[in-house]
């Protein structure tokens, strides 16, 4: 079927089977490999993307569900002005090791900070508890999100 949606600010029109998984559409059809897959069953949070601003699992979504939606992947976070404060904080605070959870983690953090611009560390842990990481023990990720929240309050973005 023909599907129209906005991906990282660009209008996209494509033809895809309605039951094509969004993760496959992004990675295989559009070559956007910034979105990763790890369990394919909605258990790990790795494949998180933002759909109309809300964190969703692209391994559990079908192409037809994208119709008319606004989709943001990790690649869409970097603007002409440079990195998003969450991306910057992930680098600065050492929140990245293997980096495979990073795309989903950053997008979930963005969703969290939108709803709660001033989260406690406990609230950050809760907000990211659907995103598994096997390298970091999460502490530096929490540090990074906390720091990014601080910075975003001063310079609201997105």
């Amino acid at each position, binding site marked *: 079927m023909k599907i129209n949606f906005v991906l990282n600010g660009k209008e996209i029109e494509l033809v895809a089977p309605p039951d094509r998984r969004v993760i*496959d559409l992004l*990675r*295989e059809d559009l*070559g*956007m*490999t*910034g*979105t*990763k*897959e*790890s*369990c*394919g*069953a909605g*258990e*790990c949070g*790795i494949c998180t993307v933002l759909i109309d601003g809300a964190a969703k699992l692209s391994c559990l979504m079908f192409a037809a569900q994208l119709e008319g939606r606004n989709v943001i*992947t*990790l*690649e869409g*976070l*970097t603007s002409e002005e440079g*990195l998003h404060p969450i*991306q910057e904080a*992930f*680098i*600065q605070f*050492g929140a*990245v*090791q*293997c*980096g*495979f*959870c*990073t*795309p989903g983690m*950053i997008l979930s953090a963005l969703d969290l900070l939108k709803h709660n611009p001033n989260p406690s560390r406990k609230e*950050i*842990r*809760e907000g*990211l*508890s*659907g*995103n*598994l*990481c*096997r*390298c*970091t*023990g*999460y*502490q*530096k*990720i*929490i540090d990074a999100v906390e720091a990014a929240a601080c910075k975003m309050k001063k310079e609201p973005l997105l």
Partner: protein
Amino acid sequence: MNKKALEIGKIVPRMDAYGKVTGQEKYAADYYGENLVWAGVKRAGIPHGRIKSIHIDEARALPGVISVLTHKDVQGSNRQGVFRKDQPVLAGDKVRHCGDAVALVLAEDKGVLNRALNLITLDLEAFPGIFDPEKALEEGAPLVHEDNPQGNILLKGDLEKGDVNIAFNECDAIVEACFEVPHQEHVYLETEAGLAFFKEDGKLELVVSTQAPFRDRSEVAEALGIDPERIRITAPYCGGAFGGKDGVTVQTLLGLAALYCPDRPVKMWWNREESFMASPKRHPARLYYRLGSKSDGTLHALDVRSYYDTGPYDHLGGAVMALGLEHSGGPYRIPNVSLKAWCVYTNNPIGGAFRGFGVPQVTAAMEQMMDLLAAKLGLSPLNIRLRNALTKGNTNPIGITQLGSTALVECLGTLKEHLLWKNSQDWKSSSGPFKKRGVGLACVMHGMGYGPVVPDSAIAKIELTKEGKFRVFSGVVDMGQGNASTYLQIAGYILNQDAEHIELVLPDTERVLPSGSASASRTTYTFGNALIGAAQTLKHRILQRGADIIMNGEMEAMVLIPGHIKHLPTDKEIPLSDMAQKLDDSERVAIHHFTASVSKETPTEDPNLRLHGIPHFIFSYGVHLAYVEVDELTGEVEVKRYLAVSDCGRIMNPQVFEQQIHGGIAQGLGYALCEEFIAKEGRIITPDLATYIIPTALDMPDMDSISVESYEPTGPFGLKGAGEIAIDGPLPAIANAIADACGVRLFRSPFTPERVLKALNEKRNRGVGY
């Protein structure tokens, strides 16, 4: 602009982080290709049996199927493995665990591939399986490999020092226990993946998620009967590995697929269930311990028998057992020891390398024994450890003199002065209703490198490019731990360059030089030492040639600054790009070979044990402290705070070091509390992330990591390995804290709410503790 040269000992944000936070970094799983073919594997499904026939005709006839291959299509040895090549690429005569690969399908897309795999039927004659390592040693047990002269024994080890039989009679206190630890799954988030294709020159190229591209190349060559010179393997950053990609995963299967489809790229990417089923796990072990001391707590005798279940294949299992055997007595002075270990074939999932490599198992046992002994003697857990802790010049339990930096006592002293230790009694006494609080300690010790026989060497290469940048050719894979970034930091420091003037080539058998696997806490130690040599050679050459060009013979007056060389007396600067033009191509490159020192002592004459790594020479040390709260109503154990004090030598980048400690603690905490990969009669009943539970952000406490910063003279800038040691401590520290909280000790881990509650109830019913 002021360009700051990279420094050692300061926080340097990881240079791989930018590509990873922007989604630009390409992992092996991210490689596709024009006109792509998907490859997938039909697996045995039963733990033990004879293959009568493999029915592939229906699958082969399915539209969209390109090829269906079996063992008959493998031209080479059809065998893989690091020490013992006992694993078939595609099983032909029999299957030895549920995950054995039996057929390989090449298809136009993933949908067709899955349908074809379902159409393959296996006619198998089921054999009785063997699922317990001790039972596997009994007379008449089913044999996993009929051709193994040692029956089901892969490797047996025996280390003796002094005389334990006499020594136990001289002890004032003796404690005895048996511990069981389960399979632990790595759960790297990037499951096994790769792309294979043939280049016009007839070369087979593989892009794979691996820890050891050069070893992979030889394995693929031998298994498939190809000249290794015709194979190129490149290793992008791994999306995690932790030991699970140290050894062949998709490599041989992908190579085979490519041979039968040479005109198109072939991709293989195991899904989570397949990864769980086919990949190696941390060896489950049963550990019988007996420990005796004098009345003041001075350790006098230790007897250990341990059984490691390696599943059906070696997959480094022998080396895992050997490292466990070597570390069985922990970081203590014990004059009399008898240590025995068996690594045993079963029909369970494969046991293999996993961060810690045998040491988490024995540390789990030994550190609980220390607390049991302390309790029996009425000593504090800290004091009994201080009394027996190894210091420099002591001999360790297997008789190796500690000649490297040995700062365990400093670690214990640091812990003793830490507020978390000092305040622990107050914290314990302020728990809420139905909650019990306790604190637990564990000392850790971890050897580095390959041991005395397999050369632990690396060959670093560095080039001044024509553009005036220094290009570091990394020989060791970065599976996520940040060693590549540290290599850039080392080169930047020696050559006095900022990050902009240093660039990286990731491991690639065509471009970099063989430098061993990313494993054994060796990546920064061994390659770092090689790189220091290469960078210094190149620096010397550039400054010498710079002095010639400036026509002032004094090299000492020349320095490197970011992007330039500078003549100090005149302030004259030459851009590095100009220097590069003036140098011959052969002068722009420097290479340095480094081999790690090995122990000259021989705690064992057994050549097989020495081959498998005994003894080690350099060790890191540490002590861990866990604060836990036990819910008496549910049995749930929550770790509230965690402190790790480590002696890993001098720290090059405190942030990267802390990453390793945090990550090790998290995997160790999972190992202690929730991670149990269960195979019942060889059949997996924790096939996914809904049934195999790893810690989430809500399960991890705030962690404190302190480095005592000793200096290891043989290490690059004084460093020792830090990649594994942190995973050794959490299980025993948490076990000891649970015992401290509520007087129950569980000898089988993980300490799930069910097990803890059962132990609490038993204690209540019997009115006794452990």
